[in-house]
């Protein structure tokens, strides 16, 4: 009897794991157009890094085209590696909105003074809640938003590389 209880409980746990993993397969990892039809609400307020101005996040987005959002922190080592690719984007005249994730503002400013500032605007996300609105799971992450529909159309988890930079440029060229 005792043996059966053990067997059944392990079986139950196994089935639970199976169901979760099965569902997990369906959870999309790249947020493509057809999977995220619903409009996301980006109309929350945030503080800018350099002048402490309070703005509504949505206003930063290009209402007729594509916006690029990059989540970064000065303490994140891969962000440092990624930085040159963001500078590449800047050199191509692509505007990148930075979200400074769980960071001390002095360190963030030092980081940008040292390496250069690739961002058109930077907002502060001291407790990490604003990044969650974008579905971010860590830093760095780069999110592409279609301003017309407020949809996330593409998401890059981890540091950007050359191929990603080309992909972002192509995405912007397609829409404009």
């Amino acid at each position, binding site marked *: 009897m005792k043996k059966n209880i053990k067997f059944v409980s392990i079986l139950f746990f196994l089935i639970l794991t*199976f169901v979760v993993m099965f569902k997990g*397969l369906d959870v999309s990892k790249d947020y493509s157009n057809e999977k995220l039809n619903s409009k996301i609400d980006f109309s929350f307020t945030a503080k800018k890094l350099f002048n402490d101005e309070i703005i509504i996040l949505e206003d930063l987005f290009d209402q007729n085209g594509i916006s690029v959002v990059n989540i970064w922190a000065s303490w994140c*080592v891969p962000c440092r590696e990624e930085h040159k690719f963001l500078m590449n984007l800047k050199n191509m005249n692509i505007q990148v909105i930075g979200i400074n994730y769980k960071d001390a503002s002095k360190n963030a400013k030092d980081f940008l003074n040292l390496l250069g500032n690739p961002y058109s605007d930077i907002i502060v996300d001291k407790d990490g809640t604003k990044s969650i609105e974008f579905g971010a799971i860590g830093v760095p992450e780069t999110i592409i938003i279609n301003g017309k529909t407020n949809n996330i159309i593409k998401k890059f988890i*981890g540091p950007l590389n050359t191929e990603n930079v080309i992909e972002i440029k192509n995405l912007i060229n397609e829409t404009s």
Partner: protein
Amino acid sequence: MSNYFGNYSLYFALIASLYLIIKSYLVSNKALKYLDKNFILITSIQTLMITISFISLVFAFIYSDFSNETVFNNSHTLKPMFYKISGSWGNHEGSLLLWLLVLSVFLFIFLLKSGSQNIKYRVLTLLFQQIIIAGFLIFILLTSNPFNMIFPIPSEGLGLNPILQDPALAIHPPILYLGYVGTSIIFSASLASLITGNIGEAWARHIKKWVLVSWIFLTIGILLGSIWAYYELGWGGFWFWDPVENVSLMPWFCLTALLHTVVVLERRNLFKEWTIILSITTFSLSMSGTFLVRSGILNSIHTFANDPSRGLFILSFLFILILMALTIFFFNQNKSKGAIKESFIFSKETAILVNNWFMMFFLSVVLVGTIYPIFLEVLNGSKISVGPPFYHNLLIPFLIPFLVFMSFGPSLKWIKDNVRKFEFDLFVIFLISILISYFILIKSEKSFLLSIPLIILSFYLLIITIKDFFSKKSYLSQKVSHFGFSLLILSILLNSLFSFEFNSNMKVGDQRVFNDKIIILKDVIVQDIDNYKSLKANFEIKNKNTTIPLTPEVRIYQQPFTITSEAAIKTTLLSDNFLVFNILKDDGYYNIRYQYKPLMIWIWMSTILISIGGVLSILRRNEKKY
């Protein structure tokens, strides 16, 4: 042409597999006097077929046959030959074919080497192993066939990713797979021995070799992976607690526990069920590793391109195997029950049990950190990120009791040892470790309360393991592995305590002073090479009496416009010097990042020592027992 060869030999292998499953199942219920010669014959034909298939793929890569979709996606005519060959298993389809090849080769070796074992046991092992092989064959043929053709034939391939062209990464997957797949034999064999009821000393002696082989390959595989991360990714670390890394670490913990438990089974005929549970778990973890990496369910910097049908197949297959194993376990568990033996608290058995508890604890922490985010996302849609602090906070404090146990556990006697009286030499060693640690920690600025006992204990353990080389109470293999392990812990601790980083902006001729080092930027040489412009900077790092030259490089590609930087790493016995630089604006300033990493090479060396211990244990001939 090679496409057809490769493809059809896989179908032949599948037919052989299905035949063997049916045949061995029918035979397994009968009393057998000898092993049917056909079993070995058909298995060898199957192994040959899979080998042909694999070689065809390698040929397609060597001759850049772009009519093959896998080659087209992953190769390029300009790739060096070495990377063309390694490219054949560097992708999803090819790597699965390699899995399959290793599976069948291992089974073949098992059938040849297990002649002294019970016939029914061998037939059943063949049956379970063939079920796994058939599963993988169907998976490959249905969802990831490496021999898909494309028409019209493209003139050039797509794969020329420089970051993947690294010798450590080229041999990392096959070595890791040898470790993973080795656990499949342990899995099949333990299920077979459950049914036949022959779990005991003789079985333990026979399966121990397979445990050791898998463990050695897994250790080396993990080592190569972190060497690649350190030199190629250039983030200045060797372990990032990335899910893909964790997935290879979990079976390692389990296999290390099994390695110790199997010795108890061999010597004392104890822990029968526990050995079987560990065998099943180890293989399940290896398979889950494949599932998690290949299905794309994880968010990781290394996740590979994916397709949901693949994930679903591996997931279902994995659960069918686990379910089968559990059912067999629960309904046959009483067959091997031996007489209950008396055990004492102060004995080697208990010490090994304690080792197992620690391994299981480390395993659970890594498992929770890796799997829990998936559960949470599915159950309530919230996303969390589990990073290094989680693992460090949970693992590091438990290293203290672990190190204490490891300093005396291995030298305890079997059955019953006496509670030790005060031993003067151990006390002296302890004092020496405190003294060494004091002189080391006094130099460090960031010593925390936690790092003091850790450093003292790891020095203590290091001296104890060196002292053990002169005792006659254990095998050389054990001495080498344990010494390697204590060296590894010490190197990692000192490395994390004394690493430092220095960032600055410099122009040619500048020098910066920090700690006791001077960094000088002597000049920057600009050259036009092929399709990029190269900037090579000559740096010098001056210490009191040494000068280390370092020349990192920045490459500027015009089409498309990208800047990449190549770090300069100078490795010495005591430390690594790591320097990378970037272009800032056009005012002649460069941003530099200098890292000093002590004892890096010892982290690699000690891991090699740990596996050398394993090799010594396999090679051991004399059956003298300690």
